[in-house]
């Protein structure tokens, strides 16, 4: 009995230590490359390779304005525009559809739900060439719309389902009361449901903003004019034109992740709520 207890105590401490070690190593593995990115963006090209591990001996802050001058400002503005328009459209259209699906009984409701649900399992990757053809046909190839329109479309299924799940918890009397007052569908949506669904709207907007900000394939395929490219694609051409001036490229990478990181750290709660409600990568 005694022996067993002491063995248990002995085994517990190493287990705890082992767990802590592994957790720490994993944290270093995930964070170190990012810290490396930050530190080496402040070095000269030579120092980057000769003293890759070390802190910069001279901190070359001018790598940042230099990266910015290579056109990052333009790419950033494009990213903001594309993300802003797409997210507003996704959330508004998605919320309207979710509202109708939750509050109205009409023929074809099941079919519409199935169409939206099915959209979750159509990956854009399989449709890139047909989409390219459609963009040309619609006359929006090589415009902002060629990125915004598919960004909206592929964000809708997730958003509609997320908001629908939330809105079913809103007491239906709310809608009935508003209808009694003679409010039309749109007014009931705008004045009753939209304000009540605000937490879910924030969660959906966060998830979609992150997705659209990081979107790469549509911009790569449907837009060849570099002046319209968002950061994700702009950085690849930026990398090509800098060729070997890697610290400046790294500075560009840092600039491009700062907005996401700040928004993520500030809005973590909403973001996590949105993710775990939908759980789709």
């Amino acid at each position: 009995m005694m022996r067993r207890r002491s063995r248990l105590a002995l085994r517990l401490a190493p287990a705890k230590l082992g767990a802590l070690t592994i957790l720490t190593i994993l944290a270093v593995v995930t964070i170190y490359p990012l810290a490396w990115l930050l530190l080496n963006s402040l070095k000269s090209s030579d120092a980057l390779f000769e003293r890759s591990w070390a802190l910069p001996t001279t901190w070359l802050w001018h790598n940042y304005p230099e990266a910015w001058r290579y056109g990052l400002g333009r790419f950033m503005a494009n990213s903001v525009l594309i993300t802003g328009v797409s997210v507003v459209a996704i959330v508004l259209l998605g919320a309207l559809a979710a509202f109708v699906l939750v509050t109205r009984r009409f023929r074809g409701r099941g079919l519409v739900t199935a169409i939206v649900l099915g959209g979750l399992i159509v990956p854009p990757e399989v449709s890139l060439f047909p989409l390219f053809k459609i963009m040309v046909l619609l006359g929006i190839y090589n415009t902002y719309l060629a990125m915004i329109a598919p960004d909206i479309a592929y964000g809708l299924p997730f958003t509609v389902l997320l908001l629908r799940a939330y809105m079913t918890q809103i007491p239906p009397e709310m809608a009935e009361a508003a209808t009694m007052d003679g409010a039309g569908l749109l007014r009931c949506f705008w004045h009753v449901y939209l304000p009540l669904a605000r937490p879910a709207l924030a969660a959906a907007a966060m998830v979609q903003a992150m997705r659209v900000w990081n979107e790469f394939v549509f911009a790569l395929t449907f837009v060849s004019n570099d002046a319209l490219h968002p950061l994700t694609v702009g950085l690849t051409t930026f990398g090509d034109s800098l060729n070997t001036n890697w610290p400046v490229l790294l500075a560009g990478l840092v600039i491009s992740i700062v907005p996401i990181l700040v928004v993520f750290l500030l809005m973590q709660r909403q973001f996590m709520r949105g993710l775990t409600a939908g759980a789709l990568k």
Partner: protein
Amino acid sequence: MRRRAIIARLAPYLALVPVLLFLAVFLYIPVVLDFAYSAHAWNSLSPTWRFVGFGNFRELLHDPLFWQSLRGNVLYAVVSLIVQVALALVLAAVLESGVVGIRLSAFFRVSYFIPSIMPITVIGLLWQILYQPDVGLIDQALHAVGLAALAHAWLGEEATALPAIVAVSQWQWFGYITVLFIVAIRAIPRELYEAAAIDGARAWRSFWHVTVPGVTETTVLMALITIFGAVKVFDIVWVMTGGGPNNASQVLGSYMYRSAFRDDRVGYAAAIAVVMFMICSVVGAAQLYWSRRRAP
């Protein structure tokens, strides 16, 4: 009066038109076009369609590059299942077990999660530099610990290119799945753990007998999401190697993209897309079935 009644009846449909239009034009019609293209031989410059039936698919069966690409996806899926599902579950359980304090556990969780919010180009360019032969961080680290023999031109050699990409993907996503598992573990009633503790169950036994059964449905869902992601994977491969060197890191997505936009073999590319779509829809349908089960 009658007019208002008609408007009221039509209103739900009108409100749904934008969403349905977007889904039709950008999700569903492209898939239909994929099927149509795949039965024809044509290219974008001389758009004379020639019906070939299953010809493109027959050619796929005898195309070693197609099978090689598919093997790439399989490797991607298998490694991801081990790292992102099995290991992430263990990791989530450890983080939630109270072995480390709450604040430290939150710190680890956020650290692991951060790579998953990074844009693919940042990930790709960063790792291209870290993977540089000799001067890159990985090779320098190997030199520093006396394992210089293991140094490689990771992305430039046929044997290592795809494994190197797959590794980056694990780095990027394991924290994301860990967080989703943490949410699932928190939904397990505390009493089950307390009961196990009274029975004297050690940590690993309460993991097997309480945690694992408690998150079964999440585990299945994560496995399906991971396989789905492995079938459609494209951007990370395209950014890091473009499928090279000598097609060594090709997956279905990159091979399809190359066939459509570089080789101008639209029908053939569509056949690859159809294969991807078929696998995705089976996995995706299972995914929908399970997520409905989980949250009725």
